[in-house]
């Protein structure tokens, strides 16, 4: 019997877990957890020890409320040791996009009319979440308030950090556009968690959280939004659809509501369900 074609291909780092957990049966099929790691919640067991399959797999959509049936996914875990998918290098002054062999092979097999949904990277702005530096603020076009009596870091330096982060995902998506003709959809990461201290798991940051605590809500949102704006600008120029965090999952300050959060930086399966609904709306138009 011929298997039904997937609705889309998913290429994802850790943020893809919320989507897969939210609407598919992927865990029943692919995940083997050898031992429980207390630093992480259930969603990220096996993420670091390589026990999640390194190759693309099919997952059935089991959520009847979403107009999707099947996803073919390549989930790139920390344990897979794959490294950067694409990297801009300079060969005797000429820029050259170096693409990983595995990435290139998988894209070859996906080349066609089905859209590719990217949930690559996205944890970069979270690098700023800990309050580990002397107090500071920066000017942002969206959030005009600035903290009094602290150094205001020049936007040039803020943007240098953000450009470095954005380039990680950007060059991977450029590689997709370069190698295949599929339409491309990128899902932005969820915003910073409303109350990160309420997280049941501090992952590998437990000691640092105890030592430094978290940056102010306003500053965490500033970093996140600036990252997203910069990424959206670049992705628009690539003719890539962008899926923003679902409004229902965010509070009035733009932070991720507690009931949609997993650990310090991720959305949970409920969040993934909301993302799936947004993807389901775009996929038919992207085919």
């Amino acid at each position, binding site marked *: 019997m011929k298997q039904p074609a997937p609705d889309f291909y998913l290429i994802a780092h850790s943020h893809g877990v919320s989507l897969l957990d939210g609407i598919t049966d992927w865990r029943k099929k692919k995940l083997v957890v050898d031992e429980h790691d207390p630093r992480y919640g259930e969603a990220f067991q096996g993420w670091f020890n390589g026990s999640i399959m390194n190759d693309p797999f099919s997952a059935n959509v089991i959520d009847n409320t979403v107009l999707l049936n099947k996803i073919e996914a390549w989930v790139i875990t920390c344990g897979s040791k794959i490294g950067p998918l694409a990297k801009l290098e300079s060969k005797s002054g000429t820029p050259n996009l170096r693409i990983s062999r595995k990435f290139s092979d998988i894209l070859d097999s996906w080349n066609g009319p089905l859209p590719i949904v990217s949930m690559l990277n996205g944890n970069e702005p979270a690098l700023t979440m800990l309050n580990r*530096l*002397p107090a*500071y603020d920066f*000017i942002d076009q969206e959030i005009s308030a*600035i903290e*009094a*009596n*602290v*150094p*205001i*870091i*020049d*936007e*040039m*330096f*803020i943007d240098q*950090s953000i450009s470095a982060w954005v380039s990680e995902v950007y060059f991977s998506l450029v590689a997709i556009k370069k190698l295949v003709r599929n339409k491309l959809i990128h899902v932005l990461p969820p915003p910073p968690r409303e109350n990160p201290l309420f997280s049941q798991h501090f992952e590998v940051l437990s000691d640092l959280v105890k030592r430094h605590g978290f940056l102010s809500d306003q500053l965490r949102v500033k970093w996140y939004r600036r990252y997203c704006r910069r990424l959206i600008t670049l992705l628009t120029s690539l003719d890539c659809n962008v899926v923003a965090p679902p409004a229902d999952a965010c509070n009035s300050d733009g932070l991720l509501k507690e009931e949609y959060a997993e650990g310090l930086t991720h959305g949970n399966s409920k969040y993934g369900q909301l993302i799936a609904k947004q993807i389901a709306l775009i996929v038919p138009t992207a085919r």
Partner: protein
Amino acid sequence: MNPYANLPRQSFWKASMQSPGALDVDFDCGRKFTFSVTDSFVTAGSCFAQHFANRLTARGGNVLIAEQRHPMVPESCEHGYGLFSARYGNIYTVRQLLEMLEQAFRIRPVHGEFSKRSDGRWVDMLRPRAVPMGFSSKAQACADRNYHLYTVSEMIRKMNVFVFTTGLTEAWINTIDNYCYPVVPGVVAGVFLPDSHRFHNFTFAETVDDLQKVINIIFANNSAARILLTVSPVGLVATAEPRSVIVSTVASKSILRAAIEEVIKNNPGVDYFPSYEIITSPYGGAQFWADGLRDVTEKGVETVMDVFFHSRMPYLREQVKTHSETQLSQSKEFEEKLEKALTDECDEMFLDPALRSK
């Protein structure tokens, strides 16, 4: 018997000039107070104030840094931190210092005049070379100015000693909002507008009045502080008076020196240190003048600081001299930094078109 009969050697010209070394002249014998090794110093003023801060630090003195480079600002960029206790840049006139303090303590509104450079970066016209890399936007420049003024107020509250090296009396005034510029608009940044930029040469009476207001602000916010005033021996680069720059230099320095004499009489917590006399008196001859006869040589600066430490901080001088000498002689990088600090960062140099192109 006459009133001079029992005066010490340093009261007599001939004996002073015959002294074997600057320390023997005892230039600073009229001092009111000395300093402790733990005193935290703030230095401000013209180019010569940078020498003072650098040498004080090099000898192990404690210079209060109120406005520090944040770790997110790369060390390699031209951020302007570390030259003075805060990023105010060179302060040439007493009026400029007064206006900065009045803004820092909200005695007058904050003046926000910013100008876009040809490279697209923004400049604070009231400290146009204090932050050489400039700012990304006008809003950035404005926010940084507010934070800078906050650090100035904190600096005044926390310091033990304020060393102010007065530079000159000539300035350019914004006639619309009545504040003075460190450098005339159009030289480093901005545009010179004859209708709103007026030259002014501060008189003796104005300088005394401004100095007294500065002293009052400082003591109102830090009653335990002590103030040490000096006059920079470095001459004017250019004068806007219709006369020789040499005549204007002497006029400026004379007014500043006399104004300081006037205020130290009436303020116990304020003293004068004679760096000006050490360099310019016939005792030094020409040995302390660098090529061009405007700037002071390394030897001149060392001599001034030797006298300072000997007179005001003898314990520190003895304690760290060896370390200082080793550090100075062994660290080429330090010397290069110092040279850059003392040449590149001197706003006034930019008045002379011949120097500007360097």
